[in-house]
């Protein structure tokens, strides 16, 4: 089920909320069971085929987590064995469902063999719930997480606001909230803040991201030859589409969770304001960065084993991060670019030279923007098509409808031509507005925290929700659902 759908907004969410609080103050277990069942219904609504998969994954990880917990502190070796079994199970599951065809096609290419591809449809949210459970069993091994109750564990994994696309949460930050006595009663401050950020998220997704999708999809998939301005509009449209889409989704997740008095971690903190690439990764998809840092980078040795090993660790972490986003070399390459950028950033820092803030921002933003081209493009050729256009290799034409309106350029006989990408003036205005918004406005979490129960905020939230709901006619999928 999508957050930006009528059925979610008008039926599922109110029903899940009402059922939970009707049960919660008397029957804690009943309320949790209700929430788990509601979450499984939410998961299966799109395609029930993968319900058994999430149940098996959940069951196996619960058992392994218990076993690890039992042996931690008593028999380290056995705990370690169960941990390895758990890691193999989770990586194997993800490998089979997400990466099998990628590896087979690469083997076929390298060995010139003809192994048949499996054509497995990617189960919804598998990357998210698998990473969350890897974190859980590792935390159990470290003695930081214990869960002996299947219902609690099921709730931790399936809680619908964060099930499909994160944030990737830790057991230790979720379960105390569910256990808290006060969570079982309606809290109107949380409800108000939840509603407010939900409205902002809905608007970001429906009105902003889906508007940019028009130019991004057209430029990436519909045009074979992009001139300079068309290519920049295409790449920037996607840069803003991705941010407003994913952060909008997260806002809605945070809002829905707040209705149940659950505070999900912040996942986006104005990432496009970043002045360097390290800061970007502290602000973008923060719960994934946290996972990569705590469960890959630090176990690899982090920055404790000298400069070269640190660079190696950074690169490995980001290659895995790239691959997590999708089974394709373009994602690996995107990860490589970010790994390389982080290494360069560390080297630069060692020089002690301070770059002017604007220049630092400009370089960071443009690097991220160019990186997203590989992230979005279906093939390397598609990515190169956009990058070539951005570099001006396909000409720097201005749209023909501006001819005669720019006297200075006319005097210079500046070339005009017809654009394949349409409504480019509109796109340029939206891109400018989006850029100003991400740079100058507080982000939605900050806005939520500043909420005052005043009429002006009610009018703002009401307007955002009203406009967005009226534009839900064409229900679209969230970009991150495929990851």
């Amino acid at each position, binding site marked *: 089920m999508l957050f930006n759908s*009528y059925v979610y907004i008008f039926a599922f969410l109110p029903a899940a909320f009402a059922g939970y609080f009707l049960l919660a103050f008397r029957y804690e277990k009943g309320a949790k069971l209700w929430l788990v069942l509601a979450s499984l219904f939410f998961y299966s609504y799109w395609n029930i085929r993968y319900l058994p998969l999430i149940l098996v994954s959940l069951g196996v990880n619960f058992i392994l987590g218990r076993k690890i917990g039992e042996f931690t502190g008593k028999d380290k070796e056995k705990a370690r064995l169960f941990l390895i079994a758990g890691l193999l199970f989770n990586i194997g599951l993800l490998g089979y469902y997400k990466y099998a065809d990628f590896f087979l096609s690469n083997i076929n290419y390298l060995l010139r063999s003809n192994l048949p591809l499996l054509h497995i449809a990617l189960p919804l949210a598998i990357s998210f719930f698998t990473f969350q459970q890897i974190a859980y069993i590792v935390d159990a091994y470290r003695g930081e997480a214990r869960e002996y109750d299947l219902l609690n564990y099921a709730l931790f994994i399936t809680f619908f606001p964060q099930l499909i696309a994160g944030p990737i949460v830790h057991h230790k930050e979720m379960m105390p909230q569910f256990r808290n006595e006060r969570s079982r009663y309606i809290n109107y401050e949380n409800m*108000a803040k939840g509603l407010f950020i939900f409205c902002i998220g809905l608007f970001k997704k429906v009105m902003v991201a889906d508007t940019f999708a028009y130019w991004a999809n057209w430029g990436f998939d519909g045009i074979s030859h992009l001139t300079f301005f068309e290519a920049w509009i295409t790449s920037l449209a996607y840069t803003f589409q991705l941010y407003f889409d994913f952060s909008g989704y997260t806002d809605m997740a945070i809002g829905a969770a707040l209705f149940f008095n659950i505070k999900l971690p912040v996942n986006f903190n104005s990432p496009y304001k970043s002045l360097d690439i390290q800061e970007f990764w502290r602000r973008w998809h923060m719960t994934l960065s946290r996972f990569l840092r705590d469960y890959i980078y630090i176990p690899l040795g982090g920055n404790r084993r000298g400069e070269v090993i640190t660079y190696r660790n950074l690169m490995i972490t980001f290659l895995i991060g790239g691959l997590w986003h999708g089974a394709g070399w373009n994602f690996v390459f995107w990860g490589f670019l970010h790994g390389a950028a982080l290494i360069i950033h560390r080297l630069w820092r060692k020089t002690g030279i301070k770059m002017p803030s604007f220049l630092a921002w400009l370089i960071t933003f443009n690097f991220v923007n160019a990186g997203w081209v590989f992230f979005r493009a279906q093939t390397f050729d598609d990515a190169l098509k956009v990058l070539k256009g951005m570099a001006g290799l396909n000409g720097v034409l201005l749209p023909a409808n501006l001819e005669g309106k720019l006297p200075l350029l006319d005097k210079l006989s500046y070339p005009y031509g017809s654009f394949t990408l349409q409504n480019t003036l509109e796109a340029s205005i939206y891109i400018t507005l989006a850029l100003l918004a991400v740079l100058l406005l507080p982000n939605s979490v900050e806005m939520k925290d500043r909420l005052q129960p005043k009429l002006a905020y009610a009018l703002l*939230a*009401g307007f955002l929700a*009203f406009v967005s*709901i*009226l534009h839900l*006619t064409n229900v679209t999928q969230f970009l991150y659902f495929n990851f």
Partner: protein
Amino acid sequence: MSYKSWFFSTLALVMLSLLAVAGFNWYIDPHWCFGPSHRYNQVQMPFDERAQKTNYVKFHPFAYDALLLGSSRVTYINPYDFSGLKVYNYGVNNMLPEEYYDYIEYAKKKRGKEFDYIIIGLDFWTTNQNKELPSPIKEPAFYIKQAESFGYRYKMLFSYDTYKLSRKNYLAAARSYPVDYFYDRRLVKHLRRLSEEERKAKIENAVAVYRDRLYRDYTYVSYAETFRQLKRANPHTRFIVFTTPESLPLLELIEEQNLTPYYQQWLRENVEVFGEVYHFSYPNSVTTSLANYYDASHFYPHVGAWIAERLLGREKRGLPDDFGVKLTRDNIDQVLKKQALR
């Protein structure tokens, strides 16, 4: 204001604004999902006839004896002109024979049994494999799935797109904004009368479209098997099949493009499959008088009434004698020979 009042005020604000829009959309009902019929919703723009007519099948009582199928030409036939029969006009813009089966099956399912009659208006342009249609046609399954999807008609009430359609329909009805063609709430389609000049321009334009797009790289495609399948799936239904009357400029274009042999092959195949075909599309007093036409291919509803009379054998005064001939296996050679001599 407390957080509690803020929460409920915001919710109320959103819900009331949405209900106002939804109420207006329900009142005008541009998707044909509900029942209201009044002076302010008597102009219904056909923005997507496949969706609208499928919605109508889904959301209204469906006690019809007969189904009428065909392209936009057929949509101008008033279903109430088939006196004695309750006909549902399921004709839609650019309808292709390969779509008939699914729409018939869907309507049959809603009716609960086979139809007594299925009336089909055939267009020659559909036989070109390389025809270039103005927009890609979505499969019937898309519209059927859409109409059947959970809460579809209520979702559409809370939609800005629906509001825009409602507003357009409302303004056209309440303020009599001029509209070229529209449906009323009885699903009768109306067509604006054109001036001589307007018609001339439209005919010229239509002939060019047929020449450049619909008859482009003409390659004949036979629909015989498609029609046989329809007959097999509806063994207790009587099929009444007719050729939609094209105006003289279009008939001349067929000849000009050297398509006459295919035109005749098409007629023969249809006669072969259905046993008899009511043929209207040849030079006769209706097709040669351009006053009967909105453009080169779309006839005015009064011509549709004549077609209905001829098909049911209930000819009234005013029906031109030379309009329509029943083609059978026995007479087709003779009729085609006679028409070729004209």
